[in-house]
């Protein structure tokens, strides 16, 4: 019985009959989407190999009747491997829970943890102090922002702005957005594998929908009637884009507000580009509102992955956040006041800062660690 890891667009993960999930290097394209899905940071990107790898419990060693390397190496025999009955474990997996550890419920974790008997009631993670920005993933900032701008423009075109220049602009942006996204992959040469898991992976769906959108946008240049179809597929593409960020491992993204934020970006930038100032102003307003609502949502939970994300955005990146709001406000005023070109530029800058903040201020669910866990220079 095989069961694939659901996030992976290339089906690189395989669950073996003994319960161990293994990862096939040949199938991995280095998109790192799995690293967002795991609340324990088990899969990790290896810059040297340009792919993700993960612990497979030394599968070949198990096969040879040996214990995994970590078990053999531990001088105090603190790690053991044991068999379990999946059906029973599904009913009761409380033994895999520990203070400050993401709930075993999320992934049905089978790592049983024996805690000291005298553990204090209030136990915190020693690494909790360590709040720092995440990687910006510039190719993804580019992909999401530019594709949303293009799709916003296509919607605007489908609504009636039928100049051929704007259709050329939309098609060009659509193509460029996908081209830029290639730089996010560790192995662009195998990018085509990203469409393998349409059944489960939002990343596969995003790739297919945004590619289809780009193709339709290109067709719409000579055949204007296709513009409406392009817009429809594009909106579906924005939805798929947003859905892949909605993962339990990243609480700041794990909300329908992410869909609102992505659609609002499309509504702000596309119409501003194609001369629909009022729609653009509303779109930009919606983007700011959704961001603020997310802060309110996150502030209700005092744990680091929730509250910490707000702290990063309003405190650590306070000047940038202020700049984003100010520039966007100026942009709204400008487009509403008739300076459409200047307004578009301000909104684009505001959304660029906003999307960058979206990536760098997310705080991941992770295992609680010793003092240096997650710090600059540490093994994360």
């Amino acid at each position: 019985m095989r069961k694939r890891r659901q996030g992976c667009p290339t089906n690189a993960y395989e669950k073996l009959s003994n319960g161990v999930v293994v990862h096939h290097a040949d199938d991995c394209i280095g998109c790192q989407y799995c690293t967002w899905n795991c609340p324990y940071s088990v899969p990790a990107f290896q810059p040297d190999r340009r792919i993700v790898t993960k612990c497979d419990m030394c599968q070949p060693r198990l096969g040879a009747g040996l214990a995994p390397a970590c078990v053999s190496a531990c001088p105090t025999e603190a790690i053991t491997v044991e068999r379990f009955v999946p059906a029973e474990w599904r009913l009761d997996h409380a033994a895999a829970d520990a203070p400050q550890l993401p709930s075993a419920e999320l992934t049905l974790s089978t790592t049983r943890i024996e805690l000291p008997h005298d553990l204090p009631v209030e136990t915190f993670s020693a690494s909790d102090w360590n709040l720092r920005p995440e990687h910006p993933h510039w190719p993804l900032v580019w992909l999401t922002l530019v594709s949303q701008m293009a799709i916003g423009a296509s919607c605007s075109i489908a609504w009636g702005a039928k100049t051929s220049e704007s259709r050329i602009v939309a098609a060009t942006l659509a193509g460029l957005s996908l081209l830029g996204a290639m730089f996010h992959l560790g192995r662009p040469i195998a990018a085509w594998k990203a469409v393998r898991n349409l059944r489960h992976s939002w990343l596969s769906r995003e790739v297919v929908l945004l590619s289809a959108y780009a193709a339709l946008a290109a067709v719409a240049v000579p055949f204007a009637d296709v513009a409406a179809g392009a817009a429809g597929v594009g909106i579906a593409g924005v939805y798929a884009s947003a859905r892949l960020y909605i993962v339990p491992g990243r609480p700041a993204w794990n909300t329908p507000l992410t869909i609102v934020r992505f659609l609002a970006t499309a509504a702000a930038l596309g119409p501003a580009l194609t001369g629909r100032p009022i729609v653009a102003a509303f779109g930009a307003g919606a983007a700011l509102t959704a961001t603020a609502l997310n802060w309110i949502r996150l502030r209700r939970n005092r744990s680091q992955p929730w509250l910490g994300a707000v702290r990063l955005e309003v405190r650590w990146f306070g000047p940038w956040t202020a700049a984003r709001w100010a520039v966007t406000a100026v942009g709204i005023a400008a487009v509403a006041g008739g300076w459409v070109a200047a307004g578009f530029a301000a909104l684009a800058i505001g959304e660029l800062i906003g999307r960058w903040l979206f990536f760098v201020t997310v705080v991941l669910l992770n295992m609680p660690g010793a003092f240096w866990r997650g710090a600059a220079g540490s093994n994360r």
Partner: protein
Amino acid sequence: MSPFSRTVDRGKRLLGFDNGEARYGYTTTAVQGPVSTSRAASTWVRTTCGYCSVGCGMLIGVRDGRAVAVQGDPDHPVNRGRLFPKGLTEHLMIAADGRLTSPTIGGQPAAWDEAIRTMVDSFKALIDEHGPDSVAILSTGQLVTEEFYTLGKLARLGMGLRHYDGNTTLCMASAVAGYKMSFGTDGPPGCYEDLELADVVVLWGANIADNHPLLAPRIMQSHHGLRPTIIAVDPRVTKTAMLADVHVAVKPRGDIALLNGIIRHLLDEGLVDLDEVRQRANGIDELLAHLDDWSVERAAEEAGVEADVIRATAITIGRAEGCVLAWTMGVNHSTQGTMTVTLLNTLALLTGNIGKPGASPMSITGQCNAMGTRETGFTASMPGYRSYDNPVHRADLARLWSIDESRLPVERGRAYPDIINAVMSGKIKGLWIIGTNPVVSYPNRETLEIALSRLHVLVVQDGFETPTTAMAHIVLPAAIWGEKEGTYTNSERRVSRVRAAVDPPGQALSDSDIFRRVAAEWGCADLLADCATPHDAYDEWRGVSAGRPCDYSEITLDRIDVEGGVQWPNGAARLYETGAYNYPDGRAKVYPVEPEAIRDRQRAAYPFNLNTGRTVEHWHTRTKTGRIGILEGLAPEAWVELHPIDAEALGVYAGDFVRVSSQRGAIGRIRARITSIVRQGEVFIPFHWDERCANRLTVDEFDPISREPNDKHCSVSIARIGAR
């Protein structure tokens, strides 16, 4: 490779043609089983770990002339196949960056002949002008025994230097001096098996979980059934204190009071057989008279420990059938280190915990071969624990080496801190530093740096670039662990073999090769004629040690290979089993000890006591471990531990940067770790880092007997310097 093909390769890499499976995928080898191809070894070299003095046996896996893996040696009696994080990554050290590969003069690469000639000519010129007092050597605890033996002869007989000491004075000199005062000679009396056989193990200022990790499983997973009662005596709740049954959180420098209180209560409870002890040790009456002034209550007051805890601890020790009293730097690093060691020895003597299985006063040493230099070195004593002022010993050595007795030095010469003081005052103008990094490891860094900058000639011999090699006029590149042959002796006096797995990089030479080149240039090659190879040097040393307390004469290399490590003297597990000690009258000696106040004590301007120490991920000044990514990733920065109540008063939160200042210097920015591991009013900083160097703060005060520094007590202030 042409620029074009390089571009193509880079492009192919970025496009992801190679996913690294060929380098990292599984391969199966006979020894390792399935293993990452990057770590698959074709041959294995049996050796001993080169970090601490526990002395774990290990195997280095080699493929294509490179060390690719290590494994614990399952047959070695010390570790039985186990290793800890530094050992498990030790093969990565050999090929780490920052190795010295060519001699340099004034920063410019030079040929070996030229470098050695320049060094010898400069030293000789200084000696001609200013006398033999003007040149000194500082060595280490990390060469092989054969090299220490060779270096001792070269320094004291060949070069005729009066001042030669090692960095071992910075870590275990107090244990050496304390053993000498108590038993007549140096030599830890017990063995690791005693940790398993004991009913009670007292870890006194010994954080073994961080610093001697493979001893912890020897206690926790006793092969003889029951785990002993573990008592940890430490001001901090160290990892060792966490695994102990009882933690006695003594005040800094409170251990003499605590020991006096424990002994007082043992006497009060009649748990000491005074008649028997009087037959085995001198000084009992003076001790008893002194303890008249010590009530358990006074001890409790001065040690910062409750009187009932002292009583309970005394009873536990006194009623134990076997008790090991093990200590390390918490005891040694003090201006009263030596006397504290004698008091621990006294406690063992009074309770009969010496010379029998499961009992001993056990100094756990620091460096991998600190013991080798204790026995063979020509520093605190002459080779084989011989005294400079003992005519029999002098005649003995002169005969063994076929030299005139007058060539033997008449006194020990300056110890490490006194060498530095003499450099500071200009009396010593030439210094040869071998395998140590005083810029980071010596207390009061600013003064030390001024002293080193005054030298006319500074020669530094090391495996890696260090802050000290950066100050040197002449740098000599040496082979390191894994690149040379010899033996190490561990804390339980066990001699194990060290072997070369790979060749040293570039022009680097083994330390013994360098010593022989210096001897040839100096014109004293004849002295080392019988030490041409490590084997020869070992055999000569065996002869020299014969009949001495540290007798290696029957410990042949072949015997070590068969037994996987042999303890001196000649395979004996314990010393003093007959009840005879090494003083001429065969009796031990006990001493009354009165605690002295910490001189640089806490006060309004400097309200915290600074304690320094180590962390398991790093070794000494990180010249090795700082270059190993896995270890750096576990502990990437230095930190200061601060009690939550103190932190609140200062407005400091976990992870904030603070400034730590003492009267001598400051660490400008260091991360605060808020934790009740430290007591209120006390802070702790690990000393491994060159950046954020704890030794900018420490005080250059030394034990008057051992000359060991006082690295655990000085006063500092802390100031918040803002959030991250």
